[in-house]
């Protein structure tokens, strides 16, 4: 055997997988961090207020000062939140007054120290139409400043699958038009960063979690005919009202039942945003 010449051998350490490397197959995935180790495209396309010039930025560029430098002392608004799933279902808002803000006065908007899209509670939203049935797994990182603000909904009909802040201390998840019971406990502090999880695949597989805790979701009423979502609405109800006053940092939608992976996904998101 050849001598090693006292060299220290260090095995190649496997890269920590991004969320979509660990749990691939998302129908749509939006984030201000890279969700895959192989994802190199931008995460946002931003319009700056000074001259309406647009440019696109990677997750690193959002955080390292590149985005802030692009906006100068002005503001920046997100025209496009890029879909990292590979399905090119980008969230695009061409109406400038409806675009969420990401830079304010030359500083990137932060929520708990990490970049965030600021929704104004007036008219900011994205609507992404695509073939999407009634059954989804949804994970999001948000904060909400006011009650009755919708965070997530179906594309063109309210409450196929949706979530909104029902009171200053509890979210309400609605799955297939059925009112979920109000949370029996108090999982939310107004305006705080929260991880919301929702899995709906049948009458029996239908639950929601707040920060990884069982929300105590309970069925109420009958279960009408299952209707397709036809896509998603980010930041208001599917009926284009009840706008979100708050922030978004991540939204991932699967068309598959992620019950088995829920804690893995929640763990990656929680630690990825901590």
């Amino acid at each position, binding site marked *: 055997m050849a001598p090693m010449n006292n060299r220290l051998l260090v095995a190649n350490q496997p890269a*920590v997988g991004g969320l979509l490397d660990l749990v691939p197959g998302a129908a749509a995935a939006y984030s201000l961090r890279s969700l895959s180790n192989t994802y190199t495209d931008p995460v946002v396309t931003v319009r700056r207020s000074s001259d309406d010039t647009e440019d696109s930025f990677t997750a690193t560029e959002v955080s390292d000062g590149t985005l802030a430098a692009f906006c100068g002392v002005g503001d920046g608004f997100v025209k496009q939140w890029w879909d990292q799933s590979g399905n090119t279902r980008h969230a695009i808002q061409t109406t400038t007054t409806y675009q969420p803000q990401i830079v304010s006065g030359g500083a990137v908007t*932060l929520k*708990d*120290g990490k970049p965030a899209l600021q929704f104004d509670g007036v008219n900011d939203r994205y609507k992404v139409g695509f073939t999407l049935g009634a059954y989804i797994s949804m994970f999001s*990182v948000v904060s909400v400043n006011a009650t009755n603000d919708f965070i997530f909904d179906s594309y063109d009909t309210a409450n196929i699958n949706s979530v909104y802040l029902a009171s200053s201390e509890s979210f309400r998840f609605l799955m297939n038009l059925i009112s979920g019971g109000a949370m*029996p*406990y*108090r*999982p939310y*502090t107004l305006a*705080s*960063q*929260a*991880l919301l999880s929702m899995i709906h695949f049948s009458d029996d597989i239908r639950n929601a979690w707040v*920060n*990884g*805790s*069982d929300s*105590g979701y309970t069925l109420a009423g009958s279960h009408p005919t299952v209707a397709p979502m036809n896509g998603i609405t980010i930041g208001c109800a599917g009926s284009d009202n009840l706008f979100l006053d708050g922030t978004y940092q991540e939204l991932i939608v699967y068309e598959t039942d992620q019950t088995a992976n829920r*804690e*893995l996904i*929640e*763990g*990656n*998101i*929680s*630690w*990825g*945003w*901590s």
Partner: protein
Amino acid sequence: MSLAAKLPYDHAYAGGFPGLGAQPLPQDADCLDYLGRMAVADGAGVEVSVANAVDAFISGAKDAGVWDSIRASCVLAGARTLAGALVPLRDYGPELWTEQSPEIVNDASSCGSWDAATLTMTNSCVGSSGAHPLFQFNMGLSAAKSYTVLGRLSGDTSHIHSVWLGTATQLSYDKATGVISGTATPSGAASSKLLFYYNTTAAPTAVTIESLSVREVIAAPTNVANGFVEGDYSRTAGLTGDGATTYLDSGRNNNADPQDSVHHSIWVSAQGLAVSVPIGAGFNLTGATRCAVSFGTSVVTPRIRESAAQPGISDAPLSGSFFGYRRSAAAASLTRINGSDYARTTTSEVPFDGNVFVFADNNNGSPTAYTGATLAFYSIGTSLSLEDLDTSVTDLMNRIRFALVTGENPAGLDPATIDYVLRGYDAGGTLA
């Protein structure tokens, strides 16, 4: 502010995610037992940050030597729901079984003996008694309390006739397996003792105590008439009484603790306005254990195992403070208010027989002197260092509030840092 700190402590990734980070999880066995029972009541485990606050409290109380003296107690903050807040901090007292030599009573020609090295009971004579020799282990049990007894015997287990708490309370005993199990209240003669009745129908025979545990059962409190509702509960501040109808029956008899070894304590998150008894039993009856608190005029009037009111103390617990009192001897009681101790030398009386109430006094079975204060903790038990309990409870309250207000994990932070950050939040600041 950390999403990771908000994960429930029993989440698969609460302790960390490979390559992304890690955080401490609660370690103390009693803490995990408490958190588990709370999670059942709440429907979900509390956040890692809150769980670590409780863990630091319990391990700190043990280090300070006050844990074993805490018997009936609830942390009325931190839990996700009112139901979780009413889960007893501990449902068992400390282990009472210690290796000891029993008193042996022979009868009808029985010949009992004890081998302390192997914890073995033997009978060397064939006698005519089906229940002798009698091995009596003095455990200091009280007929006012229930105990859970678990254990296993080996050897000639069929020759143990029966196992009793006192002479009138029989425990379940399986002669084939040697397993003892049961929860019962001692009664009859020798009620302070655990009794093994041996069978002398054959000899020689030997039975060894392989394992034995005797622990006091601590009752859960009762939200009487479901008077407290969810809206009365705050995760950070605690439970607010209405000063008129709402109170808890602690489930612990005032006489469950010795006449000259008792304490009561509370954490006052917000003062009540009227003269009231936030915790106590006995009103002005013999052996009352309660303090009337006049928040408005800052006077506390103690009765600590006594029917006559002691001279008032010109002080009253402020909002956000610990309040407690104890009796540690026949002529020594102490009341702690806002960090100051007030000692008295009045003589104790036989304790009033009735449960200790919280948010009210127990006047011979009827609640009286309700308080409208907000309380976030109470404890009832034997005498202890009120100063050390004050330190532990104050730290607990700050850590819970820190966890819930900042969303961060308080594990590893010293109390001064936590206090500083909280005062910053109270002044309108944030960590962001």
